[in-house]
């Protein structure tokens, strides 16, 4: 049961990452602008973060969906969701109204304040699923099960 719930968690978090990254991929300049709009990072590293994020999102998403190094991918996924939650809380607290840029777009949005609670709730949900995967590690239907198949049995048989 636990292992099957893990598969669901992998697919949900993984597909969200792939979609979020794929939408941003065609337009790095918009992605950079979305990061800048948070007014959180030093301007020198804003472009790097904006250019790197879509790639990392897609790669983390793919590894989660495939179940490749599941635990490691889930750790990265958790850290990223945590960073996004902190980011959204931070702009909300500072009274900055921006589109979170989570799925493309980004920048100023006058109606943003009403979106923040729902965005935070969504990211907390996805964070919990990621943390669950960190905890279980092994799940069904994962590439991990093929490449790390045990060739020895746990207890010595002694012929």
């Amino acid at each position, binding site marked *: 049961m636990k292992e099957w719930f893990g598969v669901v968690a992998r697919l949900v978090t993984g597909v969200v990452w792939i979609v979020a990254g794929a939408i941003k*991929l065609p337009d*790095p*300049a*918009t992605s*950079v*602008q979305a990061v*800048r709009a948070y*007014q*959180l*990072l*030093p*301007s*020198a590293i*804003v*472009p*790097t973060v*904006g*250019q*790197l994020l*879509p*790639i*990392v999102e*897609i*790669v983390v998403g793919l*590894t989660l969906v495939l179940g*490749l*190094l599941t635990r*490691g991918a889930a750790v990265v996924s958790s850290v990223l969701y945590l960073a996004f939650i902190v980011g959204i809380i931070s702009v909300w607290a500072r009274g900055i109204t921006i589109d979170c840029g989570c799925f493309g777009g980004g*920048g*100023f949005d*006058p*109606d943003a304040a009403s979106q923040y609670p729902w965005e935070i709730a969504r990211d907390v949900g996805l964070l919990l699923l990621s943390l669950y995967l960190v905890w279980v590690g092994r799940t069904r239907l994962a590439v991990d099960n093929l*490449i*790390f198949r*045990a*060739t*020895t049995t746990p207890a*010595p*048989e*002694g*012929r």
Partner: protein
Amino acid sequence: MSKQSARETRAERAAAALEVQRRQERRRATLMIGGVVLVILAIVVGGFLINRARDTSTDVAAPAAGSGDYGVAIGDKSAPHTVVIYEDFLCPYCGELEKATHSELATLADEGKVYVEYRPFNLLQTDYSANAAAAFKVVLDASGPDVAKKFHDLLYENQPEEAGPYPDTGWLVDKAVEAGAEEGQVSDDITQGTGKAWVEDASAAASDAGVRGTPTILLDGKVFQDGRTVDDLANNLLAQLQ
């Protein structure tokens, strides 16, 4: 050798063999993880470099300050620095930037340290953005650059909320008059939106130049983005011009 000790030796040997096998397996798993991590890192780095090359954020190829057809300039053209500011009359960050820089830039321009051109256009595609920029064009033509610059400053001082409600063209006429325009010369053209074709051309020119957002600042022809917040940006820009 007793039967029992022979069995023990056999069991020990089997255990030792198993231990070797387990060690090999752990080694194989470690190598596998390392290999997969390396491949993933290579993909991330490769993708990042491709994405970086595709990023057009700083590829703004705009006409030099004073040589464009869509702005108002202050200062001496031969000043050591030039600044071009693309802005939308409704954009809140433009309002913040104006608040933090308009009098300082005017002073620096007077001192001959910088030549500044303001290029308003319609980024946000709102009625106010279009009407205000069109009124700016009418004032520029009818009353000259000094009044147009004053009008521009007044519009930012009294900037409406981006969400609305927007002031009407009558209010724009009032501000133009307050800036020093002759009411009879600008009133009809502002009310009728005569400057709107110019605004569309200005917006197309900004877009062609690669301007993607407002405010976009060009310092000596290069996109200037050094600052976490708008205030940081303003302070860093002013510091460059001292």
